[in-house]
């Protein structure tokens, strides 16, 4: 086996490196900067150059990070390693590993829907495909995002009319910027003022510095006391819900942007006014068509609804296996709390 699961994570013995290890190792190849994939403490990191700014913000100034462009091949102990766009967030990559004529691809998290904040997903042919399965059930079929953003704008303008702030809970890295990009008007502005939570603001700056066009934002905590947020839109990480930081916005209307909002129970449990179904992961049809497009003979399924996806593939004659992820009990989060530092 070119890759195998160890207690530190996915390991390539031939090249002596790990992919998204969950414990400190010597050499880590990173799919993307979300906290459950890019962990602190490893000696050397290899990641995509598109995502180098956000990864630096996440791992700190001292981390040793080597950047490679998408498609650039490097040699690690005789193993050819290259990174290919995964379309999940800025800089997200699939890791292609080739040795002795055998090709493995680790998808990390990915989506095939268009997203102006990152390079689009690219199918990479391989023998073995290790895929995520966050939304691996047929109840998950995403509606076109143009409809979602139209609903979001409608909701925002209804709130603005009532002079209420609109709060969108979105993961600080990736989802927040995708929401911003979706609210960007042709003239480079947005319908009204947009404020951000500190965790969102810092990463949003990284996105702009990486050349992504986003509407102008203000860091909410820098506004003077008593500032009127009525009619504005606020983007905050889910961890800010219920915090005292929210008090400044008064009687605002909360919403949550996530693929989980597809299910009414999940929407109601969040106790938000709106659940916008906006995911950075593949839905069921895209998951299946991607697996098929890779031409893989063997599929390892990780992260999410592993068992149903494996069973579905086995019943269609594909050699599939469920790979235990280190992150149990996190079905509710698209990127776990580790990446959600609460910084106002």
């Amino acid at each position, binding site marked *: 086996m070119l890759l195998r699961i160890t207690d530190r994570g996915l390991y390539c013995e031939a090249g002596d490196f790990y992919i998204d290890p969950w414990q400190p190792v010597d050499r880590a190849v990173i799919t993307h900067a979300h906290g459950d994939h890019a962990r602190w403490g490893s000696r050397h990191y290899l990641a995509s150059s598109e995502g180098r700014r956000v990864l630096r913000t996440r791992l700190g100034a001292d981390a040793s990070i080597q950047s490679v462009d998408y498609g650039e091949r490097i040699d690690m102990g005789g193993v050819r390693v290259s990174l290919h766009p995964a379309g999940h967030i800025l800089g997200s990559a699939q890791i292609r590993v080739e040795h002795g004529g055998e090709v493995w691809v680790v998808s990390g998290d990915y989506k095939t829907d268009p997203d102006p904040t990152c390079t689009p997903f690219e199918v990479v042919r391989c023998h073995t495909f290790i895929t995520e399965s966050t939304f691996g*059930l047929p*109840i998950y079929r995403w509606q076109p995002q143009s409809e979602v953003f139209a609903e979001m704008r409608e909701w925002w303008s209804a709130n603005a009319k009532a002079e209420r702030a609109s709060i969108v809970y979105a993961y600080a890295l990736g989802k927040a910027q995708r929401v911003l990009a979706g609210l960007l008007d042709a003239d480079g502005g947005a319908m009204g003022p947009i404020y951000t939570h500190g965790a969102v603001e810092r990463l949003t700056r990284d996105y702009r510095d990486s050349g992504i066009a986003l509407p102008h934002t203000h860091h909410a905590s820098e506004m003077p006391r008593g500032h009127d947020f009525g009619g504005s839109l606020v983007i905050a990480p889910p961890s800010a819900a*219920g915090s005292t930081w929210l008090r400044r916005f008064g009687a605002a209307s909360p919403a949550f942007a996530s693929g989980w909002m*597809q299910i*009414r*129970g*999940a929407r109601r449990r969040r106790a938000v*006014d709106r659940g916008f179904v906006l995911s950075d992961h593949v839905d069921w049809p895209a998951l299946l068509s991607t697996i098929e497009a890779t031409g893989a003979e063997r599929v390892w399924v990780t992260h999410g609804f592993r068992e149903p996806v494996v069973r579905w593939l086995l019943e269609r004659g594909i050699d599939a296996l469920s790979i235990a992820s280190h992150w149990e*009990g996190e079905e509710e989060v698209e990127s776990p709390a580790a990446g959600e530092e609460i910084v106002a």
Partner: protein
Amino acid sequence: MRRFAQLFAEVDRTTRTNEKVDAMTAYFAVADPADAAWAVYFLSGSRPKRLIPVRRLSAWALEIAQIPEWLFDECYDAVGDLAETISLLLPPATSYTERPLHEWIEQRVLGLAKLGEEAQRDSIRESWSALDGVERFVWNKLITGGFRVGVSHQLVVRALSRASGIDEGTIAHRLTGHWKPTANAYRALLAADTSDADRSRPYPFYLAYALEGPLEELGDASEWQLEWKWDGIRSQLIRRDGKNYLWSRGDELVTDRFPEIAAAAEFLPDGTVIDGEIMPWANDAPLPFAQLQRRIGRTKLGPKILADVPVVLIAYDLLEIEGRDLRGEPLSSRRAQLATAIANARAESRFLLSSIVHATTWDDARDAHGRARAQLAEGLMLKRLDSLYGVGRRKGGWWKWKVQPFTVDAVMVYAQAGHGRRASLHTDYTFAVWRDGVLVPIAKAYSGLTDVEIRELDGWIRRNTKEKFGPVRHVEPVHVFELAFEGIQASPRHKSGVAVRFPRILRWRKDKPPAEADTLDTLQTLLREQS
């Protein structure tokens, strides 16, 4: 249908009462009466009887969605709601058509039960292909009899009142009992002439809030009437035009359930309405509520059950006498007339005048409250002597003051995922206490934790499952919870030998190791003290 589905979505997504009422008001203001009648029917929580076995529905759905049954089951597990699972799995509508709500209900829903399986299948498939998104979800909810929306009956009444200008009391009065969802009934509901009320119908019940502050804030004790609070079925007994009707607070006509009370009503003068509590009662004392439940569950009442569980009506208010509406008179006056009516009825064995608990000071009241459990009452009712009989739950005139619940510290041993809002979160827990070093389950509880605690516990449950039996997880006995409950009874059906009433979680005792949870002895002692 589109407009009704939109109303559902508007009501469903907000937690603000005002927005719900606004959405309903806007709907009623413009809706066609034939549609609005059905909207009232469904929003108030009525549903047609089960029309179609759900197993058939899911079989047809997975046929269309082209997925195997096991995958359907996985989806259902993740969603926690059958109607929603089906609407998410079906492909988009192929022949979307807009039809009014009443047409859908009257032509496509009500007749379903009478069709053969083949015809049902064709009808359902055709409906599915003509509906999309929320409409399809709502329609699935209607045919599975599971349509629920987060509004109370009172909010629907308020919206109707706002849309029509008719006062809430009249609307509530007109809606109680067997209201038929027709265009004419809807027009009659909002008719400007308010003298037409059906003679069989009860008045809207006046409901008390739980006592909040100290007694002293209520003013002088002498201005209040105190009575025992009983754990029975709140009811109105109506005698008008020589006929008798007994209504429960759930707007259900229960005359046939309690024939002995209906018979005793013959002794009341025509035009009488009594508000009271149906209680199982023998030898001058109440029987446990579970005894009453034995009667509620039956369609036929044989002589044995009538003898085993005799009932009385504890009369505590008089709303009408000789056809005169007394609700505008103060309690003191109503009470005096009630006492006379009961005394004249010569049926004392079935009518008990609710006894007044004498208290000249609030300290007396506190003493009485301390004796409530010994009386087998669940607390005290405090009613202002000058209070009028209001509509619905209103603050100020009446308060209920329940005794402190029993509590026990128990260990969580099983957990199961909830449904609906709680799907895919473990929210249904089973708790156990110690007997000879072994944990014996004593209660299931679903409520009492905050969302944050539920999430935390859910993560812990997933990581600390010892065994799974279907959806039930056997977890490490680590976490101790303080449970409250209202009563305790011997029960041969439970392994522990006891059954508790209304168990719920008071708090998570993170400070307590499982070894310090209570023992079954504690509960058995409580049980002995009760009887």
